[in-house]
């Protein structure tokens, strides 16, 4: 297991992404920030904190559970569904989805379905800590912390203090085929 991003670097990319979001959307008035459970949630909360500081108005992050929307529900172990909690209406707003790792794109597809059941956003943008490639669907991120080329068998783990006890990104060789 090797570390590819330190706590300091994770903080830095979070701040950069927050600034990019403000620049791209001309402020934060029209945006709703939504973290995909589990680790998109702390990422969204951290982006929200920076956004609130730089724009001087509070941004309330939401959370989105996509467990029931997965296309591989029949083949994975059952997990409990988490709370979907979005503090504002998403109708007509720009929703910024936040997640830890962008890999196949299937999680994001499920998240787009879940959002559709909550309302009709004006636009949806995607912010991720790590883009590791290997897409299986035509999906891309708007804001990327770091592009990390990986082998398919490798495992990328983004960790957050509030869930994992430490901040940073690690890569595990995984099982070689």
């Amino acid at each position, binding site marked *: 297991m090797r570390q590819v991003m330190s706590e300091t670097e994770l903080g830095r990319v979070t701040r950069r992404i927050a600034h990019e979001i403000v620049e791209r959307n001309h402020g934060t008035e029209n945006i709703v920030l939504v973290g995909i459970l589990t680790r998109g949630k702390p990422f969204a909360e951290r982006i929200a904190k920076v956004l609130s500081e730089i724009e001087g108005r509070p941004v309330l992050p939401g959370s989105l559970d996509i467990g029931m929307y997965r296309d591989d*529900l*029949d083949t994975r172990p059952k997990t409990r569904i988490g709370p979907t909690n979005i503090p504002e209406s998403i109708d007509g707003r720009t929703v910024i989805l936040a997640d830890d790792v962008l890999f196949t794109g299937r999680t994001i597809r499920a998240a787009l379905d879940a959002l559709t*059941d*909550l309302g009709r956003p004006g636009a949806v943008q995607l912010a991720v800590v790590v883009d590791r490639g290997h897409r299986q669907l035509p999906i891309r991120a708007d804001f990327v912390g770091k592009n990390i080329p990986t082998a398919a068998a490798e495992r990328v783990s983004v960790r957050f203090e509030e869930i994992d006890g430490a901040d940073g990104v690690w890569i595990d060789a995984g099982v070689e085929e």
Partner: protein
Amino acid sequence: MNHLLTMENLDRGTLESLLDEADDFAEVLTRPIPKVPALRGKTVATMFFEPSTRTRMSFEKAAKALSADTVSFSPGTSALSKGESLKDTVLTVRAMGVDLMIVRHQATGAPWRIAEWLDIPIINGGDGAHQHPTQALLDCLTIRQRFGSLDGLTIAIVGDVKHSRVARSDIFAMTALGAKVILVGPSTLLPLDPEAWPVTVTSNLDEVLDAVDVVYLLRVQTERGGASVFPSLAEYAVKYGMNTERLARLRPDAVVMHPGPMNRGVEIGYDVADDDRSLVLQQVTNGIAVRMAVLFRLIGGEQDA
């Protein structure tokens, strides 16, 4: 868990995990579109050989909220009235490609027989005077939401225990979750061998009123002969009916529950049913969430080998 037939053999951990998941699904039901695609492509059959309003509708709503398709069977309008046997009826419905069956039947044990004949999960939606497991789950969820836990609570189940599958399921679930259960009713409607159950019994409702957290009223089941073993409905109402005078003598945080359908003016007073301390409608709402949890447990996601 392959079937849900009875509350007798469920341990505390299983009950609590089902209630936790039901709480999760209760949140789904508050979303703008209260529907998730978890059971898309699955078909659920409601096989109700005995009349039902709330249980059947609640299961259908739960299945649809999980995006399953539903088919339903009613004896009056089916080939059963042409003499088709129970076994042929359920085999026929199974052959149409259903993934799970919810069975209500007047005969005790019918869901077990069907579970032997078929290779799909069966949920007991009420068999005779025996068991009604999802009712017990929704009752326990409602109590848990109100009090945080059933541990240490005292619950009086009042009325026609003898004919009540609700009581038989509730007793096991509530005591497994740590509550103390007192059965209250005329001796002709109480079990003959109460010492075989984890309960205490009394025929005097008034003496337990100030000692209970929950008064759970059972319906007087006139269709199962429930009214033939006491002198009159009016006398029953006087001795065992939850009226406003008795409501006032409960502890301030105690609540009143009823599985429905209610006989207002008999076991529950007209005003009591609509009182803030009556959880009757919350029970109905919770019924959908617990049935979603059970359906998802039985046919959602990867199945236990």
